[in-house]
């Protein structure tokens, strides 16, 4: 028997919707800018290189609807270019400053090149990177899947099926608008699954989703192939379970590759290191220090002493780690082949932003891995979940267990003492939204706009990111502000709708600020049982 295995690498790209037309210098908008420069563009480069060299590969990429909305937003695209121009200017200055120090000068040059490349690629796609990913999908090397509309954490939304359904419907709708087809699968935020949730996915025509390992291993009944084959939920949707071993190798801060001493140190940035007067023009206008993305040191070791980053060493390490990863998959597949009567599939999902942003060498590692898989061996093949299901349409029926991929495995990250205050408010406005959708069936133009905006405010408040940030205790001020802002917007608008006194200026303001999902129809919040129910097309 031939010893082989299938490997499915899934990159989940997501950022919460952060867009502040009222203030050019909101620091949190840089989450997007940094991710574009350090992750999305490097990934586009990797895919382009592979295609150029005729390397065959199959990856799965989930693009969250909030990320798609930001990547296609004119204002944010323009701001990204401004941000990038500032960095290019800084890298020019750095070339000058480091000219007598070859090690640093070499790095300054590398950053300048990165930024110039980023600008070139960004402009080549007319500022819309979604089209770049679409091209890769159309070429057949990427399978792009969707995600719930604003990355709402579904297990804590379970009380309101209408809200769960709206998140999923809208995620699919956004996908269709940008990719001209139906998504095959969905990344459910944080792998947060509860029994019954799969029915919503099936109803919307989705074929598959992912859970963490224990979601499949603890499914009911017990799965014969553990998490090395998907199971079908009773609804008919396939659930693929994350492979622990391959996850750990990449994710783990201690044992994982990204912690290697030769890799670039994320926490040493010239925004903090350099002389204040020199760096000030590239900091926030209020003058506080921040990350610039230019980082000159390698992880080096445990202590605070850091040595200069050596790109060549890091690249060699990335190649070694790609080889190691592949070797471990081969061993894993060989072992599994002794126990299974079909080819095992190893599911390796990662946050896309890990690659490049957190783990600077991540995209290089991925490129090495793909090339090695294509040229150096026969045992492991890349596959997407759709391709797997086409090949193995018969799978065991079982219900995955309630689970997530967050710390401790269940809802603890998104529900604890730091963030539990969110849910009573969230649930109240969810109820109000559903009630309005059931009641108001033929609104006037203005009322309809208000109702649609009301739904947007609810959706934005539902992002799992806010609860996550509160839990991790970084940038909590922003998360609190955003939550309270959306709650306030909702309440104010709700009152205006109730009293039939819609303030048009206020509505205009909200519409231009929180402008995502332009084709949203509030009626997706109708209850099925509602007597007024009618199918809406959004």
């Amino acid at each position, binding site marked *: 028997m031939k010893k082989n295995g299938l490997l499915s690498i899934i990159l989940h790209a997501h950022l919460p919707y952060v867009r502040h037309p009222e203030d050019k210098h909101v620091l949190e908008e840089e989450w997007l800018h940094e991710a574009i420069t350090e992750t999305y563009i490097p990934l586009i480069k990797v895919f382009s290189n592979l295609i150029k060299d005729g390397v065959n590969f199959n990856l799965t990429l989930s693009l969250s609807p909030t990320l798609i909305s930001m990547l296609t937003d004119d204002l944010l695209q323009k701001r990204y270019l401004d941000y990038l121009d500032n960095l290019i200017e800084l890298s020019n200055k750095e070339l000058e400053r480091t000219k007598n120090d070859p090690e640093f000068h070499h790095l300054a040059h590398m950053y300048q090149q990165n930024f110039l490349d980023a600008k070139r690629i960004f402009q080549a796609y007319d500022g819309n990177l979604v089209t770049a990913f679409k091209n890769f999908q159309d070429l057949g090397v990427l399978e792009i899947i969707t995600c719930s509309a604003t990355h709402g954490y579904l297990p804590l939304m379970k009380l309101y099926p209408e809200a769960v359904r709206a998140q999923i419907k809208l995620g699919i709708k956004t996908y269709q608008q940008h990719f001209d087809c139906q998504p095959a699968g969905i990344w459910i935020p944080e792998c947060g699954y509860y029994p019954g949730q799969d029915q919503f996915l099936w109803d919307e025509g989705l074929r598959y989703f992912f859970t963490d390992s224990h979601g499949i291993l603890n499914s009911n009944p017990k*799965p*014969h192939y553990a998490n090395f084959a998907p199971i079908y939920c009773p609804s008919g949707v396939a659930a693929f379970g994350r492979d622990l071993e391959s996850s*750990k190798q990449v994710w783990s801060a201690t044992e994982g590759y990204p912690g290697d001493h030769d890799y670039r140190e994320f926490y040493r940035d010239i925004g903090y290191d350099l002389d204040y007067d020199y760096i000030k023009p590239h900091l926030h206008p209020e003058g506080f220090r921040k990350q610039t993305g230019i980082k000159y040191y390698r992880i080096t070791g445990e202590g605070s002493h850091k040595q200069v980053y050596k790109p060549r060493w890091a690249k060699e390490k990335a190649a070694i780690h790609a080889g190691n990863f592949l070797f471990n998959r081969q061993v894993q597949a060989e072992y599994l082949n002794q126990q299974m009567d079909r080819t095992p599939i190893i599911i390796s999902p990662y946050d896309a932003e890990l690659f490049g942003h957190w783990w600077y060498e991540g995209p290089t590692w991925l490129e090495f891995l793909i090339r090695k898989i294509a040229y150096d061996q026969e045992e492991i093949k890349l596959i997407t979940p759709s391709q797997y299901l086409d090949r193995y349409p018969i799978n065991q029926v079982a219900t995955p267990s309630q689970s997530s991929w967050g710390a401790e*495995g269940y809802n603890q990250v998104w529900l604890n003492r730091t963030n539990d205050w969110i849910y009573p408010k969230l*649930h109240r406005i969810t109820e109000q939204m559903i009630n309005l959708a059931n009641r108001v069936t033929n609104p006037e133009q203005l009322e309809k706009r208000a109702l649609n905006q009301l739904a947007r405010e609810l959706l934005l408040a539902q992002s799992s990111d806010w609860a996550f940030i509160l839990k991790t205790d970084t940038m909590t001020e922003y998360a609190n502000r955003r939550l309270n802002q959306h709650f306030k917007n909702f309440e104010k608008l709700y009152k205006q709708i109730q009293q039939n006194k819609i303030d048009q200026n206020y509505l205009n303001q909200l519409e231009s600020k929180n402008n995502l999902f332009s084709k949203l129809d509030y009626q997706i919040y109708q209850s099925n049982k509602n007597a007024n129910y009618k199918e809406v097309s959004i």
Partner: protein
Amino acid sequence: MLLLIYSLIAVLVSGVIFYFLWLDRDDPGVKSETNQHEDKAEPDLNKLNYELEAGEELTQFDSDPEFDNNLLVSNYWKHGINHQTENLISIPHDAYINIPALSEELLDDLRDNVCDNKLALLTQSPTSIHAYWDASCLELEEGQPTLRVYDLTAGEVDNYFDIEISPTTDNWYIEVPHANHEYYAEIGLLTENQLFITLAKSNPVLTPTDQPEFEYGDLWMKVVDQEKEYVPYQPDASLESEHEISNTSSSTLFKKN
């Protein structure tokens, strides 16, 4: 508050009397070991306030306000009364209850307030459930504010435990004994006489399972083009589901900060 309790009790008691008048009283000694409230606490997501409706109905049929308050409420008192009243007050199986008279004023007050009460449960982990509530009348002095948590998986017989809460808190992390059990809760006042007056009822929640099942499944399905059919299939594999929670996702990464 006291008045409400008493009026409700009066109602129940009148039900019991009613019942006793119609039934043979040949086996009053039947008792069982544990909490015997047969209130199955059927979880009802409907926002209608049963308590209120039941209360109103029964007050109407309680025509004698001057009724004897000292009564033995027996084990099977509840057989004689409207099922809905069970949801209203849980009476211990063999309590002697002293019931003074009742004021309509307070009762009205409660009715106005209690109908907007809310209690919600959210699963946190296999052993922990988060409850939050918005309940008026918890601050009344007639009873100890209490969360009563029912284990719906444990069986037909009521299986619950109580958590004393402060009238000023509005949420609680409930430690529960069993993973993969369905729980349901009520918030209310527990009187000195161990009467439980429900002020709000929750949704049911299922705690996640934290271990693999014992039995492999034998149901297989074929799905092609959104068409599903069950098919016979015999896998030649039975992998053991050894696992741990990996804790390797973005949350671990960010913690480094």
